[in-house]
């Protein structure tokens, strides 16, 4: 940066004005700008979770991944290297920072009991144990081993899985593995609708 630069905050002082009143200043004038907010932020390449174009996005987080730092997102921008979006984003992708950093996020497991009129907090352990018990009981109660014709069907019609559009392939694979092993046939996904 030029050592001769001066900025405008100084210019507005009387002295500054007087200096230019009685003699023209040939030192170039500079104006201050906001510092580039992502200059030292950490970059993570990711994929936009919205439509199927799969734009590459760069998630900028504060901190240099040092142990004592909890990263916080400060900006999200398109990945210019990505062959499809080449850095561009739509209004949804461009606002991903607000999706990551959102005060409406669910932060704790909750349960609504039969007949309940509000949510109750529940621990992860209790929630998962209860769910596992319900899965087993429902399965044991209704599992169909043979159909009317005597063919082996080994299916479970009473439990359904509905998967979302932003589940990763790996997650979906785990779902297929676990659900099909339970015998689940009501296995559906946003892909249908």
């Amino acid at each position, binding site marked *: 940066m030029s050592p001769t630069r001066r900025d405008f905050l100084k210019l507005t002082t*009387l002295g500054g004005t007087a200096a230019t*009143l009685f003699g023209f200043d040939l030192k170039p004038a500079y104006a201050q700008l906001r510092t580039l907010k992502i200059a030292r932020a950490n970059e993570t390449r990711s994929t936009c979770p919205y439509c199927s174009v799969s734009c590459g996005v760069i998630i900028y987080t504060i901190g240099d991944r040092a142990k004592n730092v909890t990263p916080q997102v400060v900006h999200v921008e398109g990945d210019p290297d990505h062959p499809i979006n080449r850095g561009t984003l739509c209004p949804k992708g461009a606002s991903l920072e607000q999706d990551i950093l959102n005060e409406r996020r669910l932060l704790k497991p909750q349960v609504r009991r039969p007949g309940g009129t509000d949510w109750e907090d529940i621990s992860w352990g209790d929630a998962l144990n209860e769910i596992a018990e319900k899965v087993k009981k429902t399965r044991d109660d209704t599992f169909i081993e043979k159909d009317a014709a005597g063919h082996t069907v080994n299916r479970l019609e009473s439990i359904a899985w509905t998967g979302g559009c932003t589940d990763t392939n790996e997650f979906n694979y785990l779902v297929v593995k676990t659900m099909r092993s339970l015998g689940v046939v009501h296995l559906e996904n946003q892909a249908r609708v």
Partner: protein
Amino acid sequence: MSQAEQIIPHGHVLRYTLRERLTHWVAGFSYVYLLLTGLAFWSPWCFWIAVILGGGQVSRMLHPWAGLIFVGAVLYMYGMWAGQMRYTDIDKAWWKAVRYYSTNQDDKMPPAGRYNAGQKFLFWGFFWGGILLLLSGVVLWFPEYISWNLRFLRYLAIIVHPAAALFTIGLFMIHLYMGLFAERGAFGSVIRGDVSMAFAKRYHPGWYQEITRQAAAPRK
């Protein structure tokens, strides 16, 4: 406060009541502030004035409020003096003879009353100038609320305000010159309120006659 309450030195006569003097100085001080900050906005070469007066932001913030005070004082003056500021035949003659006035040949002037035609002009000049400054000033105060369709108002204001201001500055300079330099005693009159009989007789012969007639009349 009535005239009677004020002690007038011998050979002097009350020209401005306290109320009048106060009003004058409210208008005067606010005008000076307006002038200084206005000049700062008028030309970059004067922007330093704003810096001295607390910075551009403070100047911009207070200028309209000072303007309201000034216009308020002017309107109050209107209430006090409008009746005395009517244009008369003597004023007509006065203007015809103004060259004598400006060359200090006051004896060649027609006998002015409490206010000569020049002062009346000053009064009306400030009154109408004040109105223009107020109207244009309000637009300039809140330009963001003037919709795009009414933008001509802003365009008008931005030219009317300085034009009116320049006009009043002209009046102001003459007023200052007359009051401080040309007419010895005039300045004292808006401070203490009284002028010497001689002053009254010389500059406002009509008024002088009026008050001496009043003084001669038996008191009730």
